[in-house]
């Protein structure tokens, strides 16, 4: 059961900077276990991260790693992947980095169905800048920039990426680590745009302001509000209230961007002969 993880971590960079009880360390650890389970060649694996708490993950992971600008990781990753499709390219982003400033690149990456594995660590807040609300902060909640309660609605990120064309969509939680590992491994092995929302907990900047002061409480909340997709469809609308489905939500085998482009190159070079 134990996964080889030490060689994929930059040991000299630990302890990491994430706050006590933050879910990002758990998610990053289980992403590494997913990489191990998927048996990826670490020399051919690139991790691209944006700016924010999630953005620091690439620095701890022992691969070719790139810490880019806020919201643009998917655009950088698109160039890395298209230039060398043999690379396994993983993007680590957050709910602010990926769904606010980075939203346009998220939907276009999905639309292209380019073979990237995008892990969006959703802790429902801008943690790095100490607690502003994000597109995933629940309506009504408190944050430093919603002192009177958040009036914004949230994205349904799974629905958004599905409508945009992603061919693998899953959601996991920091609570259910085994499910996370399975989801990461399957997403990594899927050819096409794999979008994985990983629900994380931010006790310091989100929980503290919204009646959930400890990581343990927040993890229990994740446990109680997540329902495996296999059971989800049997629930009534009433039962679904306040809950969300987890697991592989959608999977489709669809033409992948870099493969289609290689066909153009092959045919053009054939003609040129």
């Amino acid at each position, binding site marked *: 059961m134990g996964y080889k993880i030490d060689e994929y971590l930059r040991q000299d960079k630990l302890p990491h900077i994430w706050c006590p009880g933050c879910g990002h*360390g758990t998610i990053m650890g289980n992403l590494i276990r997913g990489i191990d389970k998927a048996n990826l060649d670490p020399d051919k694996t690139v991790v691209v991260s944006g700016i924010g708490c999630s953005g620091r993950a690439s620095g701890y992971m022992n691969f070719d790693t790139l810490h880019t600008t806020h919201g643009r990781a998917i655009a950088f990753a698109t160039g890395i992947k298209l230039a060398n499709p043999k690379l396994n390219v993983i993007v680590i982003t957050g709910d602010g980095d990926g769904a606010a400033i980075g939203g346009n690149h998220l939907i276009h990456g999905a639309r292209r169905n380019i073979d990237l594995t995008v892990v969006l660590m959703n802790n429902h807040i801008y943690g790095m800048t100490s607690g502003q609300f994000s597109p995933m902060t629940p309506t009504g909640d408190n944050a430093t920039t919603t002192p009177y309660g958040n009036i914004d609605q949230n994205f349904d990120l799974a629905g958004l990426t599905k409508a945009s064309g992603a061919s693998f969509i899953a959601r996991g939680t920091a609570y259910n680590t*085994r499910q996370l590992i399975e989801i990461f491994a399957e997403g990594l092995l899927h050819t096409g745009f794999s979008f994985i929302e990983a629900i994380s907990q931010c006790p310091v900047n989100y929980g503290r302001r919204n009646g959930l002061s*400890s990581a*343990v409480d927040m*993890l229990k909340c994740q446990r109680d509000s997540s329902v495996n997709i296999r059971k989800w469809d049997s629930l009534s609308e009433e039962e679904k209230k306040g809950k969300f489905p987890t697991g592989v939500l959608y999977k489709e085998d669809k033409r992948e961007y870099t493969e289609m482009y290689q066909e153009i190159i092959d045919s053009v070079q054939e003609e040129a002969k």
Partner: protein
Amino acid sequence: MSKKGKVKITHPERCKGCEICVMYCPTDVLVVKKGQITITDIDNCVGCYNCELSCPDFVLEVVENNER
């Protein structure tokens, strides 16, 4: 999955006292004292890996007992 493994605190200096592992442990082997994770009674450990998989700071791992 052999049940022989037992939890071992391999990087105590990384522990931030968040008590996540304490919540996950089915047999109360772990407890935080003065912000630092400690083992109560190792014999109760059933080697289920919950703590290793959930620890956000890579502080502990289940080790096969021949490596103890």
